[in-house]
């Protein structure tokens, strides 16, 4: 789950990482008031989940509270990369002497968290050559220690006895603490700014592990799913909207991808990715079918190879939706094999539907039907 910049900064501040003076505003009047409290040049930053706010004009630099009000008014009426701006962050304008980069994320290949840092942060971090990027893995059994942070700071070329170096050693350790305590799969500060003797997190990017939400209920996060994607997520299903015309349901991420690949190879276009795997029961499967039909596709393709998913559950769900709607508004093709396959096919037969044995035959059939 993603956070807006201001949410991440509030989290940083709670843990003692220095952030600029200021806070979030939802109206131009609030922005004016915050700017008056700061008392000097400010920055008004749009809060959207897009990395291109500056280029889109979503960051402004007012000098007075009146200018801040006007800037907030403009920014709050903007849409950046399709995302409407609903709030702004009003902060002190920092004197920037140097921009650096720091993050901790998960390295799946190493099965460890990894610290990534660079003495050259800011807008162009992704364009930096490899030799300017420091990567250091964090041994989960050893955990984070001051020596680890000191070595990163040394490699960034910052003196350990300088005010900057001392603060950075603290920040690095704190970032890992946040990762562990808040199940963050990414914490990023870009840029980390030197401003005279201060070191300040001038931006924040925090992503919380979606699988850890059961123990992270008190954290704020931003909705970044479409309504249909949210409805599926609430059912515990993984769903992504695409732009084709055949709605797809399969069970398991790999086979769902394989189903989309097969449809596309035969000249069809998928409307979505929907993995209803993991032993999804009859009721949730029926709701998922409703979500798919709500996309108004030209056809519906169900591809089930039951392992933990039981074919009779899927067939019953299909029958429930069929009966509730008095049939389907679009052509439907079902491939149904695996656990409890015979029971599932009996149920389908009772409403006059024949299941396919092989994915490739079923895929060709649905493409014919929607043409």
């Amino acid at each position, binding site marked *: 789950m993603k956070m807006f910049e201001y949410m991440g900064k509030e989290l940083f501040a709670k843990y003692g990482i220095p952030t600029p003076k200021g806070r979030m505003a939802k109206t131009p009047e609030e922005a004016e008031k915050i700017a008056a409290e700061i008392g000097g040049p400010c920055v008004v930053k749009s809060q959207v989940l897009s990395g291109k706010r500056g280029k889109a004009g979503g960051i402004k630099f007012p000098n007075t509270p009146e200018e801040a009000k006007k800037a907030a008014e403009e920014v709050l009426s903007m849409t950046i990369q399709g995302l409407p701006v609903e709030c702004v962050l009003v902060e002190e304008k920092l004197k920037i002497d140097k921009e650096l980069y720091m993050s901790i994320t*998960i390295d799946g290949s190493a099965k460890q968290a990894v610290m990534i840092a660079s003495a050259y942060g800011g807008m162009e971090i992704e364009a930096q050559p490899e030799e300017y990027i420091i990567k250091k893995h964090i041994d989960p059994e050893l955990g984070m220690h001051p020596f680890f942070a000191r070595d990163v700071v040394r490699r960034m070329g910052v003196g350990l006895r300088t005010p900057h170096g001392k603060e950075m050693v603290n920040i690095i350790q704190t970032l890992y603490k946040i990762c562990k305590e808040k199940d963050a799969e990414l914490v990023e500060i870009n840029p980390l700014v030197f401003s005279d003797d201060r070191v300040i997190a001038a931006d924040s990017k925090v992503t919380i*592990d979606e699988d*850890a939400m059961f123990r992270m209920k008190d954290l704020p996060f931003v909705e970044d799913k479409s309504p249909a994607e949210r409805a599926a997520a609430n059912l515990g299903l993984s769903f992504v909207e695409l732009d084709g015309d055949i709605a797809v349901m399969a069970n398991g991420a*790999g086979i769902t*991808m394989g189903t989309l690949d097969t449809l596309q190879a035969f000249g069809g276009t998928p409307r979505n*990715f929907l993995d209803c795997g993991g032993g999804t029961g009859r009721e949730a499967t029926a709701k998922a079918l409703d979500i798919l039909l709500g996309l108004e596709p030209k056809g519906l393709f169900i591809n089930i190879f039951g392992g933990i998913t039981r074919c009779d559950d899927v067939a019953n769900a299909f029958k429930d939706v069929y009966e509730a709607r008095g049939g389907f508004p679009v052509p439907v093709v079902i491939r149904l094999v695996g*656990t409890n396959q015979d029971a599932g096919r009996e149920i389908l037969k009772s409403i006059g539907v024949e299941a396919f044995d092989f994915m490739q035959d079923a895929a060709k059939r649905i493409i014919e039907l929607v043409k």
Partner: protein
Amino acid sequence: MAIIIDENTNVLVMGITGRQASFHTKQMLAYGTKIVAGCTPGKGGQEVEGVPVYNTVREACEKHRIDASVIFVPAPGTKDAALENLEAGVKVVVIVTEGVPVYDEIDIVAYARRKGAYVLGPNTFGIVSGGKCKMGIPPNQYFVEGDIGVVARSGTLTYEIVGNLTANGLGQSTVVGMGGDRAVGLTFVDVLKMFEKDDQTKAVVLIGEIGGNNEEIASEYIKEMTKPVVAFIAGKSAPPGKRMGHAGAIIERGKGTYQGKVEALTAAGAKVAPLPFQVPALIKEALGRE
């Protein structure tokens, strides 16, 4: 021979009294798996499908030799359950549970490494040594004994391809599910090395997907292998930046793309099947069979 598990493996089912676990205990027993014990805290003394249930893994280990455990407990308790089995000395731990927080997975994998144990998963369908032993959730009827090794990240896609292999007369030595999550216990290279050494295995099917760089790393080892490798990579049609179900199945910053993986595998001498049902023909071609 098969790898990791065989007909002599004594299996414990963790969380055996749950709905999914008891259902699949029955399925595993029907396959021929030697399930000698189950464990659910507070339900010791009961039986599930004739299998005795114990309160702790240590208690089960006092009564039986446990070679391998399969874990079905819900995600919030998975780390505890996995560590309990590893601490008790179980050398193969298969974690079926999905939705385990990634930092819990990292801790499980690190502890397993210290104990010299294999962890499959989290979020794996399990492992099957054809005709000998099944741990996990795959449907029994498609997994038959033979000489093809299969290693995969994704469950149902594996059933799909194994189903095609079996329909074409190609049985399996062992089918290994590494798990679909970011931090899982085994790598493709770990499993490929075992297949390379295994007498029963004559060819290997690698089932990968977009995201990460596991397939690229595997390609480096495939160059050294004497046995033929046929691969299928899922996600050719996936748009960048969208997570396709699995935590790791996402193309980010131009990395982990379908094309990159196919190029790496092809350069290493593996044959890549464009679609799942085309795998058996490539295997037969590689082994010179009709």
